[in-house]
């Protein structure tokens, strides 16, 4: 069981994810160059945070055309688990694997803080080990984290119980306090907070551990 961590030009949380999954949790992990299309032997893929392709045009707009992502669509269809963190979440929405879009924070600030979050659904494996409504603290670090979608999409997300994570004190203007969503099947999770930065007590908290642990959970 191995996790693939995609490295785009401009990714800057790829090594943090590796440190968390391999170093802190002892999960088999390897890097995956964005030009690679071979996902053989991988059981889960992480799209890490950063500024892929310099965030040119829109966050994630150019990364969407990376060769690795054409294989990723097939991987998701076959039930493979995909976690998009921050820029990875933005890429998943540009790719259409998750609905909606991430736009400029309401207050225009780049927000770098550790914030309280509430688990809103434990329907999927990602949050199985949490209680519904359980509070956890994770770092956020983004300028474009304001989740937006149409009223229809929001209704659908609610009906399908796909809103996984909400901000306790909405920092960026996201509709419905959304911090993370899953697809209907539950194998794709996109979230703005960084679980990989909360896996080591030395760094102030370990609330991200169970989320990353779920990458290889059966």
């Amino acid at each position, binding site marked *: 069981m191995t996790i693939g961590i995609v490295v785009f030009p401009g990714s800057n949380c790829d090594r943090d994810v590796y440190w968390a999954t391999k170093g802190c949790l002892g999960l088999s992990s390897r890097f995956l160059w964005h030009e690679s299309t071979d996902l053989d032997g991988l059981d889960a893929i992480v799209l890490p945070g950063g500024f892929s392709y310099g965030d040119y045009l829109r966050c994630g707009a150019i990364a969407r055309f990376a060769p690795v992502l054409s294989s990723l669509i097939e991987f998701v269809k076959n039930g493979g688990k995909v976690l998009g963190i921050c820029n990875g979440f933005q890429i998943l929405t540009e790719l259409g694997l998750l609905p909606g*879009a991430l736009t400029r924070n309401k207050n225009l600030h780049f927000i770098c803080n550790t914030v309280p979050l509430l688990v809103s659904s434990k329907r999927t494996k990602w949050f199985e080990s949490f209680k519904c409504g359980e509070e956890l603290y994770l770092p956020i670090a983004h300028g474009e984290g304001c989740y937006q979608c149409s009223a229809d999409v929001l209704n659908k997300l609610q009906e399908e119980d796909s809103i996984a994570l909400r901000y306790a004190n909405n920092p960026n203007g996201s509709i419905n306090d959304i911090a993370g969503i899953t697809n209907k099947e539950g194998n794709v999770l996109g979230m703005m907070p960084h679980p990989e930065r909360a896996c080591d007590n030395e760094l102030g908290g370990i609330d991200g551990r169970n989320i990353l642990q779920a990458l290889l959970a059966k």
Partner: protein
Amino acid sequence: MPNFHAKVQVSLRTSVLDPAGEAAKLAAAKLGIKGLTKLRIGKAIDIEIEASDVQEATTQLELLSDRLLANPVIEDWNLELSQSKSSSIT
């Protein structure tokens, strides 16, 4: 092959919050600009393209605008196309 010049205007949908536009609007008021009721910030993309005719250029540019330059979830786009004066029709 004829050369076409295009300008694609990308703007946030009216239902989408434009915090940068709101901030610029506040600054405009401080500058003393009166009567401003709307200020929305978008992008303008300048393009030159070779195509056999207007139809082909339009098809290519519509695909480009819809799939790459704009994200239809949050943005609208508008395409203006004209044939470059320097190009000759063959």
